[in-house]
């Protein structure tokens, strides 16, 4: 049973640079939490503070109810998988995996049993006698995970473990990690800058930016109801489009105005939410899949938007089209059966049922 709690945790270097600015986070037992964000957002620092590799400037971290601020890494009962695997080059795969158990004075039989069990889970049984140099990237990755599994720790920590693998192997190992977590069921904190990894692996995703947590939630929630402009733009690929707009009108008769000759009635269920923000510069957030070719059957709140295409990118299952709305470059997704050609005008549609309205002053989604 290992819950991890961060209370007002902060980290600063030389009193000037604040890498982490007082974050709060509760991680439940057996939960798989992914910290995601761009480089320098403080996610790796946070992970290293949980591991005890980085001193905590302020706040409190507890693992399984015990405050660990001043507990050295070896006594925290955690296991970590590093970005470059950090396998001991002078030890065989077996010794690499057994090292932590040997230091903790486990019996030889027990070490053998645990290493064999981990090797079976990870399918590296025949590599046990090899040294790390004789392994491929994917195999090293498995050994690094094996080293974590054999310890039966309270918490697994992963620090961008897949970023050194090629794209194909990364997808494969992603599935492996998920499978391992389903088998071993240990509280896991996983750091990545790849939002796809975050979405696919996590029970809950923690989006970080500039040392603070922007939003915490299950992947679907983050995708469909982002709390801030940063989360809206960070989650999802291609990224959400942001178009300057204005809300006009009164009561239940609000319109969304994108340009002088381009305004649409707002969906009736949004009027109450947006009513307080009329006649201000706002941002309309619309994902590319909600900017698509005009369909024959009219749906409520789907508005027509004829556009001259700048660039088209055929992806196979879809075509990405780039065009402008009142000067702002946006990206849409159309069905591959549509004849989309750069330079030509295509009847497009915007699905306002899925719109987001962002206040540019606070960068929060309303």
């Amino acid at each position: 049973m290992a819950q991890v709690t961060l209370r007002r945790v902060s980290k600063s270097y030389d009193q000037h640079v604040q890498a982490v600015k007082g974050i709060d986070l509760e991680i439940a037992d057996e939960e798989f939490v992914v910290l995601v964000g761009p480089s320098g957002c403080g996610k790796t620092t946070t992970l290293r503070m949980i591991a005890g590799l980085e001193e905590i400037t302020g706040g409190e971290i507890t693992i399984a109810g015990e405050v660990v601020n001043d507990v050295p890494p070896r006594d925290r009962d955690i296991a970590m998988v590093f970005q470059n695997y950090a396998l001991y080059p002078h030890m065989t795969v077996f010794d690499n995996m057994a090292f932590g158990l040997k230091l903790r004075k486990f019996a030889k039989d027990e070490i053998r049993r645990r290493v064999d069990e981990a090797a079976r889970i990870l399918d590296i049984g025949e590599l046990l006698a090899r040294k790390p140099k004789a392994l491929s990237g994917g195999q090293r990755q498995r050994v690094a995970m094996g080293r974590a599994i054999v310890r039966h720790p309270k918490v697994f920590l992963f620090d961008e473990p897949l970023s050194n693998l090629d794209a194909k192997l990364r997808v494969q190992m992603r599935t492996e990690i998920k499978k391992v977590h389903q088998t071993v069921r240990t509280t896991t904190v996983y750091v990545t800058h790849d939002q796809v990894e975050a979405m696919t692996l996590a029970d809950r995703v923690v989006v970080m930016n500039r040392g603070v947590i922007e939003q915490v939630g299950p992947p679907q929630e983050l995708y469909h109801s982002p709390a801030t402009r940063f989360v809206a733009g960070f989650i999802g690929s291609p990224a959400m489009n942001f178009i300057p707009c204005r809300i006009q009108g009164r009561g239940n008769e609000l319109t969304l105005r994108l340009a002088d000759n381009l305004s649409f009635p707002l969906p009736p269920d949004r009027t109450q939410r947006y009513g307080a923000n009329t006649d201000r510069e706002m941002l309309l957030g619309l994902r590319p899949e909600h900017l698509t070719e005009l369909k024959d059957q009219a749906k409520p709140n789907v508005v027509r938007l004829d556009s001259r295409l700048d660039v088209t990118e055929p992806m196979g299952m879809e075509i990405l089209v780039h065009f402008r709305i009142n000067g702002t470059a946006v990206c849409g997704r159309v069905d591959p059966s549509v004849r989309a050609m750069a330079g030509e005008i295509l009847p497009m549609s915007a699905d306002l049922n899925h719109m987001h309205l962002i206040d540019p002053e606070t960068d929060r989604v309303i």
Partner: protein
Amino acid sequence: MADGTTTVSAPALRGFAPPARRSSLRRFAQRRSTTAVLMCLPLICLIAGLVVYPFFYSIWLSLLNRAMTRFIALFNYRYLLRSDTFQLVIFQSCFFAITAVFFKALIGFILAHVMHNISGKDQKLWRGVLLVPWVIPPALSTLGWWWMISGDYSAINWLLEQVGMHPVAWLASTWWARIWVVAVNVWYGTPFFMIMYLATLKSVPDQLYEAAAIDGATWLQKIRYISLPMLRNIISITVLFSLIVTFANFDIVENLTAGAPANTTHVFATYAFQLGIQSGNIPLGAAVSLFIFPILAIFSVFILRGVGRRAQEGI
């Protein structure tokens, strides 16, 4: 017609055959390996002249009588092995080289770790300060040490007297003299070990230590299981290198004790100098200096074998 054909074919023949030979010569000259050998030739000549020739010449010398007029085979060697003084020289050389190298490596290893944990600018400063003994010519620094410990002007004895202890005739007692010779050599040679180990420590990824910390290692276990194995090759190489240099050391012993008291601090080089140059028995001196060779050859084989194996495993 016949004349015509000969006049035509003669230049054609001349023009054909010699260029074929010339072009193969040119091809030989243009081969990269040929160029490489040619470029190395000055060095090869230099090594042949300064190393290979003196080596074989000293072997030849050691097989001659004192006046260098008669070939006496291994007589000089037999004489040396039966001489009590030379047996002492063998013991003293081994004692000197092995203890000095051991302490140089040990202190260098500890200093490198201390240095590695000092951050940024301070490290640069301390590194510079600690390198000083190594950059002073040993003959000069030995003279400084001699001043501090020799009977008449000894600063160390003065210090002892200040704290109420009796002065010691450091260089007149066999074991004190031996210890001082080793100590000065350690003082002089440690920075080399420190800088080599520090450079290698810097190339060990921090994450190995972090992984070990998470795996449950104490600092001593990190040194035992990470630093030592990762530094094994450089330790082997520096130890071998230093053994060679220390076995052949001349200036520290010569300047500090010159073999005194009663030849008990002589090493191969100073004894060879005394016999060969000062006493004028060049063949016997040559025989003494050649004794280093088989001892170092055995060391080298053992040490380099391990280095080669580990290099293949990528450590």
